[in-house]
């Protein structure tokens, strides 16, 4: 019982770990610079607080998953791990949602506020950020599946023994 239940969980956690580490690496290495009207515009991820928050949350998620992978499985704190899984899944979800909001402003601008889109001038930065957001999405979905699977394991939810 335990091995067949533990393999999918291990797989999901590994996917989440890989996706969040990828998201961090891609976001941190995103930079581009361009010359516009004689001004030097350089874009880095640290110029925008939302992307810093994204990197922070993904760092927390990967550190948590890494620590959990080395955890001895004889302990009886399954409930606390379930709650922590839920918290990390929600954090990932909020970070990716904020990044998409800011990314939309960068890609399309906001004519009502007088904000011009910057993706035309720094296309490499935009592509990098898009890739990081895709990895962040995968990490968020993987963590949601981890939470659902934890619920199933702990509570035996999906077997109809009412």
């Amino acid at each position, binding site marked *: 019982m335990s091995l067949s239940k533990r393999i999918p969980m291990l797989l999901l956690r590994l996917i989440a770990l890989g996706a969040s580490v990828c998201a961090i690496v891609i976001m941190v290495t995103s930079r581009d610079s361009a010359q516009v009207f004689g001004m030097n*515009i350089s*874009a880095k991820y640290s110029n*925008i607080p939302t992307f810093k928050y994204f990197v922070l949350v993904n760092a927390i998620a990967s550190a948590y998953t890494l620590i959990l992978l080395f955890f001895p499985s*004889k302990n009886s704190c399954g409930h606390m791990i*379930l709650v922590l899984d839920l*918290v990390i899944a*929600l954090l990932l979800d909020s970070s990716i949602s904020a990044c998409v909001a800011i990314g939309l*402003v960068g890609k399309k601008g906001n004519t009502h*506020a007088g904000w011009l889109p910057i993706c035309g001038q720094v296309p490499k930065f935009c592509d990098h950020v898009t890739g990081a957001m895709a990895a962040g999405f995968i990490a968020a979905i993987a963590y949601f599946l981890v939470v659902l699977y934890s619920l199933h394991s702990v509570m035996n939810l999906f077997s109809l023994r009412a």
Partner: protein
Amino acid sequence: MASEGGEKPEVGHDQAPAASTKVDWTIKGLRVLAFLLTLNATLVMALNKQTKTFAVGTIGTVPLRATLSAKFQHTPAFVFFVIANAIAALHNLLMLVVGFAGSKLSFKGLAPLVIPILDLVNVAIVSGGASAAVFMGQLGRNGNSHARWNKICDKFESFCDRGGAAMISSLVGALLMIIICAVSIIRLRNHYGYNKLALNSSVLP
């Protein structure tokens, strides 16, 4: 095995109601609060609008005036915020109705499972909407010098203040909904067979 499985929930049911009435009423109170907070966030942001007239230039001695308005529909993040909080408020209302009417009906089978899962989904929706709006608001308040985006909060102060109030209300509502979700997941133990052996070995990888 069949008789064991049949007896355990009965024992649990006999002991559960006395201890869980207090928890029941606390959860109902928290849900009322969460409903009011998400409803407040929806309404405040949906009615958020400010129009201002600026002096843009002069022709001779006559100043040119332009009227600019800030509405929540201009920003997709705020539209998402309004929709997400509306969905969460509707969900809380529905759960309140189900909670008050549920003592008269008896739910069998999959029905008690639906409530925590819906809670989980709605918590995710609200947290996504709140965080998107918070970061857009931060951009509007501070601007971004590197991208040459000017701040708009110095010109549209009451728009920004009302938006901030809606965001705070939504964040507190999201926190309450997380607590409600956690408690409703834990209370599933009383409904379904709770396998203690499964607890220790299957959650960890």
